[in-house]
């Protein structure tokens, strides 16, 4: 967790999670991974979108947990779901045909075309870090109508070249998704602890379009392993409101106390 911003009384991670949750205001269905995406999606359901349908790859459709789940198969997800279905069904009948609006993903490495690595750091055969791997991400990235990526921005993560391409954003640029037969539109936005990046409509390259309060363009460029393009009009993210912070902290507290005696 980053240090508390002295002016606003919130952390960069809290700003990132709130900014990600706001992205779900108009979504109706969201495929959720565990970690930051799950926190943001549940915050969105609490604050802005009570009818948002959360879908977890364990087969929980329309889960409505009143606390953060500790894993994608947490019992609270099954108990509160509209339907509990099998894993083949969630991928084949619900994700693959394009029924889900938004796929929410994290990344260990990200490149300028929003391609994601969650497999290895270093050489595949002799990795310096063996990461968990693909999980549901490649097909979430392929088949949701659009994607949102939540990731902390630094040079280890924002790289010129991925060590391994696990999930496709825009491949090597315009036209690649169509050529590969990926039917979703691809990532719509990348939310970081510094600001917001969006793909350029022409080049598909991630462009810095907003900074969170207190962040600078220089900071964003320093944290990016390629020559970061900055939008002509740069917005400033609205800082987290008291209601947003209170709801987020209430949620994260439920996770910390979950399962401990």
């Amino acid at each position, binding site marked *: 967790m980053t240090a508390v911003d002295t002016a606003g009384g919130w952390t960069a991670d809290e700003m990132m999670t709130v900014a990600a949750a706001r992205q779900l205001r108009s979504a109706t269905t969201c495929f959720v991974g565990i970690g930051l995406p799950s926190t943001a999606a549940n915050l969105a359901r609490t604050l802005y979108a009570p009818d948002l349908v959360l879908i977890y790859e*364990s*087969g929980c459709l329309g889960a409505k947990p009143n606390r953060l789940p500790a*894993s994608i*198969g947490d019992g609270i997800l099954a108990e509160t779901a509209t339907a509990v279905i099998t894993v083949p069904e969630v991928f084949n009948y619900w994700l693959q045909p394009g029924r889900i609006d938004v796929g929410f993903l994290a990344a260990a490495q990200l490149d300028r075309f929003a391609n994601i690595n969650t497999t290895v750091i270093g050489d595949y055969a002799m990795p310096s870090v063996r990461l968990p791997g693909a999980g549901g991400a490649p097909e979430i990235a392929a088949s949701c109508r659009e994607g949102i990526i939540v990731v902390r921005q630094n040079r280890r993560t924002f790289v010129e070249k991925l060590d391994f391409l*696990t999930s496709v954003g825009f491949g090597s640029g315009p036209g690649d998704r169509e050529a590969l037969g990926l039917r979703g539109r691809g990532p719509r936005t990348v939310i970081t602890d510094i600001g917001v990046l969006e793909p350029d409509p022409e080049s598909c390259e991630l462009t810095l379009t907003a900074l969170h309060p207190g962040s600078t363009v220089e900071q964003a460029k320093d944290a990016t392993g390629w020559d970061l393009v900055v939008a002509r009009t740069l917005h400033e993210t609205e800082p987290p409101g008291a209601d947003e912070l209170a709801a987020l902290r209430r949620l994260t507290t439920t996770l910390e106390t979950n*399962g401990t005696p």
Partner: protein
Amino acid sequence: MARVVSLRDAIAGLVEDGDTVALEGFTHLIPFAAAHEVIRQGRKDLSLVRLTPDLIYDQMIGMGCARKLIFSWGGNPGVGSLHRFRDAVAEGWPVPLEVEEHSHAGMANRYVAGASGLPFAVLRGYRGTDLMDQTENIAPITCPFTGEVLTTVPALNPDVTVTHAQRADRAGNVQMWGITGVQKEALLAARSTLVTVEEVVDELAPMPGQVIIPSWALTYVAVAPNGAHPSYADGYYERDNAFYREWDAISRDRTRFRQWMADHVLEAGSGAGVAAI
């Protein structure tokens, strides 16, 4: 008809060195007691199959049971890394581990093909990813009707599939509910099977969202109370989230890991389950 036997006899009768073995259960109903019995019986050179290796395969890999892992997501859910898995991949400890990795959709469809008696499954997946370059078990195919290029993965037909369920009746019909993951497909894809259950009852009262596997489709049923701990069994006990967090420290160090396994698995009898943790 499934034979209802002891866990020790079921594992001894089913699992041989070199087998391809799937112990399934997606976060819920993970068959830990059965895995511990495989470890106690000293099986090795296994090809272990599972979407999410979880702590169950971290333990089997660290105890030297596995030659190969076929999987799609290898982390400690909600906590972080699987240290025994990482150590085996990076350092070959205690034995080298070959990996074949897929996505969840790919693995799920491999079981579906296996259960369906088909040689392969077709899906929209993997295209544009580096996963396709690492195994021959992901290949493109052109649809004969539309000309569209799709992806195929071969059927998975494990020598043995093991799952855990809430209960069975005396005839060996099995009932599970809650998150049932890929268990039905993994069981029906296998050449032989074992389902461990919390209890055997006279009659299987219907439950919402239940999956029933008829006795005649199974090889063995064995009673293993608390047999999914530290994962959970809906209606019986909750997930031991604290243990999943503790595992991070236990598994980081080779010596501490081996000592923990000696104390809690090797020296525990087959009837002990994992209740003593």
